[in-house]
């Protein structure tokens, strides 16, 4: 009797395990469509909840909660952030680099048009470093578009549904960004670690580069890059190189507060109209 009852259980459990493994193996083929549909179905709810939570966030962020002043404050903050970003970009695109970029006709961030979007929430799971934004393919959003604020780089769009998109943040271990150091122009790649807000740099092109704490790090200018050049990414927070070390250990901290995002700009990059032009 016990054998009779347990046998179907074992068979069913085996079927579940096989189905799970098969799903994981074949996930890449159909997960995009399924996820896009699920996100679209959930988009109105997420948007409503986001609106419902906005007053709570406002109270937490600004105890005065006086709406006109708050709106003005937000506008000024965005302007200040834009200007800080502009200043940093100016530092990034120094005279020599700017001239070189013109010579080799590299497109830059000023060439990219943007889509303004609002962050509607963080990752629903414990092991993702993403945020959801309220614009999707209906507004021209595509996978791979860089995401910025006035302060600097936020991340990149990794999935898109009709009315929503998911942005993988720049400190996610799933995202490496080609960067250039401000002073030496040495190129490296960010190599984020799980749970660590400071990001180590790897594969530095010049192991003897002079690096100073506080200097800026920008997206690197290379052909077919995933990001436009000269977007501010981070500041150097530590630098060390022992006599035995082949390469220095450099860590940087993102310029953007990735835990408190409100509005972002998604850059159409590479520009979809550029190919035809």
């Amino acid at each position: 009797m016990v054998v009779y009852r347990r046998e179907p259980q074992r068979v069913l459990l085996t079927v579940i395990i096989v189905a799970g493994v098969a799903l994981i193996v074949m996930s890449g083929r159909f997960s995009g469509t399924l996820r896009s549909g699920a996100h679209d179905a959930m988009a109105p709810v997420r948007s409503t909840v986001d609106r419902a939570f906005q007053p709570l966030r406002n109270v937490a962020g600004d105890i005065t909660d006086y709406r006109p002043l708050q709106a003005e404050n937000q506008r000024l903050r965005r302007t200040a952030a834009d200007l800080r970003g502009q200043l940093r970009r100016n530092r990034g695109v120094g005279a020599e680099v700017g001239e070189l970029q013109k010579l080799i006709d590299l497109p830059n961030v000023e060439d990219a048009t943007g889509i303004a979007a609002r962050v509607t929430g963080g990752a629903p799971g414990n092991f993702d470093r993403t945020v959801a934004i309220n614009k999707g393919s209906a507004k021209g959003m595509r996978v791979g578009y860089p995401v910025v604020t006035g302060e600097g780089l936020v991340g990149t769009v990794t999935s898109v549904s009709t009315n929503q998109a998911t942005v993988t943040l720049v400190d996610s271990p799933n995202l490496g960004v080609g960067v250039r150091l401000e002073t030496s122009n040495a190129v490296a790649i960010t190599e984020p670690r799980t749970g660590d807000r400071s990001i180590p740099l790897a594969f530095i092109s010049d192991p003897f580069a002079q690096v100073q704490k506080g200097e800026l790090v920008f997206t690197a200018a290379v052909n077919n890059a995933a990001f436009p050049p000269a977007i501010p990414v981070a500041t150097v927070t530590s630098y060390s190189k022992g006599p035995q070390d082949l390469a220095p250990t450099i860590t940087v901290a993102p310029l953007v507060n990735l835990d408190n995002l409100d509005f972002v700009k998604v850059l159409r990059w590479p520009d979809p109209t550029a190919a035809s032009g």
Partner: protein
Amino acid sequence: MGIRRIRLLLVVITLLVLQTSVFTHLRVFDAVPDLLLVATIAMAYESGPMPGALFGFAAGLANDLFLTTPLGVSALAFALTGYAVGLFQTGLIRESRSIYPLLGGVGSVAGNILFILIGGIAGHDELFAAHHIQVIIVAALYDAVLANAIFPFMRWATRTDVGRAWPPG
């Protein structure tokens, strides 16, 4: 479709909506609760290993649609957790409500460890990180608290099945 299945479907949809909207704003020390995992544990507690595994697979699959890990990782992790909790619950004294947070917390730890193992084997090496120990512990505490609300919810959803043996027929 029986009334019980409709209730279970409603539970999954409700918890999924809460997970992907409300609780994305309520992150504590990098952790959010796993509502559908707690529901799976409650299902296994109420109905046994196979219903727990089947519910866990369906709930995990729904959860997977909103994550960046491959489809099936949560489904498999939740299903195995549901099965294990279902086997374990047969030896429990079922009168006390104080078991809910305990089961919710311990099951959450098991489910998240399984998620990391399966996701890591599936190629997401970044899941094997020391920081995730902290995340698992905080999430387990979160889940333990919410188990007090989710267990009665699942008891309501499964109540028409009282006295029914598994497998049916």
